């Protein structure tokens, strides 16, 4: 029996340990915020946070996960959005929205490690997250906005 802690809740799985975390989240744990895009860690749609790192859950086997996992589904608390989610709303970032869960999780990991990222820092951290709607200019603006708000808080 594999036990995984996701967004603070322990979940268990008694099936294949080589099941990618992505599909455990989506099909078994009912947490569909994390998206399937490419299955090869090329697009970033499935990004979650493990040990403070932005990780592609499509290439992470559920049996290998030993520390807690954070996903988009648990980012807001009961009463308020995460400041990065709020910045995404303030900048009206999303279009189709499909990549945005992954974009937001990559941005969370970036800002937790580097509270005042430069444009180059943003490029380096976010370049693995593909967006076909072309929301990049607003993603950049939202990260700067959230950085300013987190620093001021």
């Amino acid at each position, binding site marked *: 029996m594999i036990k995984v802690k996701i967004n603070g809740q322990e979940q268990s799985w008694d*099936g*294949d340990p080589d*099941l*990618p975390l992505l*599909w455990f989240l*989506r*099909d*078994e744990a*009912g947490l*569909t*915020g*994390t*998206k*399937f*895009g*490419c*299955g*090869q860690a*090329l*697009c970033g*749609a499935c990004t979650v946070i493990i040990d403070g790192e932005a990780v592609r859950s499509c290439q992470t086997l559920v049996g290998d996960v030993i520390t807690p996992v954070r*996903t*988009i*589904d648990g*980012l*807001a608390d009961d009463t308020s*959005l995460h400041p990065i*989610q709020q910045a*995404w*709303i303030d900048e*009206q*970032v*999303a*279009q*189709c*929205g*499909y*990549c*945005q*869960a992954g974009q*937001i999780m990559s941005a969370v990991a970036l800002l937790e490690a580097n509270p005042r990222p430069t444009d180059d820092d*943003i*490029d*380096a951290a*976010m*370049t693995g*997250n*593909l*967006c*076909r*709607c*072309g*929301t*990049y*200019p*607003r*993603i*950049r603006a939202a990260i700067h906005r959230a950085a300013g708000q987190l620093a001021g808080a």
Partner: protein
Amino acid sequence: MSTLGTVTRRSFLFGAIALTGGVAFGYYRYATPPENPLEKDLGAGEATFNPYLKISSDNRITIIAPRAEMGQGSYTTLAALLAEELDVTLDQVTIEHGPASAAYYNAAAMREGAPLPQFDDGLVAESLRGALGVVAKLVSIQFTGGSSSMIDHFDKLRHAGAAAREALKAAAAARWNVATYSLEANAGVVTDPASGRSATYGELALEAAPLSAKVEARLKPRSDWTILGKPQPRKDMLAKVTGAPIFGVDVDLPDMLYATVRMNPSPGGRVRSFDGNAARSMPGVEQVIAIDSPYGQGVAVIADNTWRAFKAIEAITVEWEMGPIPASTTEMEALHTAALDGTDSFSLRTLGDPDLVFADAARENLVEAEYDVPFLSHATMEPMNATALVTDTDVEVWAPNQGPTIIQYAAARITGFEHDKIKVHTTFLGGGFGRRIEPDYADYAIRIAQRMKGRPIKLVWTREEDMTHGPYRPMAKSRYKAVLDQNGKPKAVIGSVASPSVIASALGRYFPGLPVGGPDNSLLDGAYNQPYAIENYRIDGRKVDLAVPVGFWRSVGYSFNTFTHESFIDEIAHAGGHDPLALRRELLAAHPAALGVIDKVADMSAWSTPLPKGQARGIAFALSFGTWVAEVVEVADRNGAIEVTKVFCAADPGIVLDPLNFKAQMMSGIVYGLSAAIGQEITFTDGVVQQSNFHDYDALRISQCPAISVELLENSERMGGAGEPGTPPIMPALANAIFAITGKRHRRLPLSHEVPFV
């Protein structure tokens, strides 16, 4: 063909209604469509006023936005059209896509489909008849495409809102025994200023709904708009930043099973044989089946989760037959060359006598060029998927799709059920770009669900399956030649475009068995219909039948013809010794909207101020989907590699309904076009597509994304679209900028074959 007969008859009916409902000014009576699809699913206390509005006694106001929300923001702006006239705020309403229904047919896309330049009000009757025969088949088909959602609904939804508002006032007037005109409606409440009485729309809804076909209403003048014309927060934003289950892949139904398919990677090829025994014995696998559909032959696995289906399908060995297509891109290109060398062609508009001018032209006054563009995949972020439930009596489909009634046709063909037994739920779409008008993924899901009657099946394609099966944007090869006069200005231009026909290919898939012939204006869009004043001018088209499925890819024919045509205009300018912006300005002088966007983009980019060494600009212009657009790209040489540093865009759609969203759409179109121009292509070897995932079919990343500024103008007299017009000019503007910096003209996309990019 009987169902299609019905469609055609209906289309005339709806055409008549569109006329009565199409009066933009003055009082009018709301012309109720013969069938309001909301009527049959009303809950207790719910009333429907027309196909776009439901109000319940507990004051829930639901607006139907009957177009796919695939990122373009139509969900919010369509609702804004109705809310503006209904006098409610966007905070007070919920928005639904609504059911698949002929009531939501797309009229604007049909008008756009007419083979007429958008700047030309005179009709070329013969070619119009020829092409309308094709386009009429699309009538009363509900689909999202052609940048048509706002144009199509600008009047329809405002009238729907205004008529409902007046009906609500009339119901209050009857209740209070006062005159309707003495009442006021505001923020969902009808008030009688004389007595101070008031009632919410919800309280009045059941009495008001039957009155909506009887009242007379007048649309607000633009100066009274409080919602339209102003940036509105997107109503789907919260769901999209919290990971809410709104997409097709997120559909979750009781007792649901999961499936995936592997279809013949060679278009049109059959399955000779397959061995599914290994797959059948894998954990969680319920069934391994063959799929035989008009869209392909292949195999499917049904399992208890998606991953197990993915694993099992890899364990199936299949012997594929190659499809009836040329084996390689090289062979396909040779067929394009043969088409250009041949004489079989059509043209939709000829000015002057270009052949005569060429016959007399001196060699030194000629400019000639040949251009090539590749097949392209849409590569939506959300892979193709659909969920289907088939029982003995009906079919239900949940799908991120751009054509719900097209799915109904597919479901009817497969199951034999009547359309009223086929329910299509349109979820949010993780990107569309034209790919999701296709019914293939829904067709497969229904076929799989038939094998598991009573249990919903969620079919999800792998990215590899998505990338290796079109329908693709077609490849094209074009030849252009021009004669310059003594001032270096173009006296005559002849262009020839060879490409597979999107209309023939797509209609053949949507309505299998339907013969589709004749000219396809989408093959020439972006070339024959541009407003340049060139005295002697002709563009001809040559259809190349490769049997590779091709479809609608963001901006369709403009996506390749604007690249070639605007590259060639640039070549003419340089050959004649003219500034490329100044020459365009001169040739477009008769069109104020064109001059407006050219002058604006010149301003924005400081065109007349030279850039430092190692930097350069390029410009391109296009009139597409009713919107006039000029774009300037700035590039910089970074140690021999090109960086796209800035993009300036000026666009004129006549009326801007939401400036923030419109600008986002232009930006989106620019990034989508840059991705294609720089690095994307689909190629064939041994009859099979070579690209499979984002490692060999990548798109622009944030680190490559230029700074983009967009300005909007409202000089045009017609309303234009938003979703596509940003894409066409960006590809030639980039190639023209690269010419300006390197002196080398690139005539083949993607540019990365010949140019290193940062």
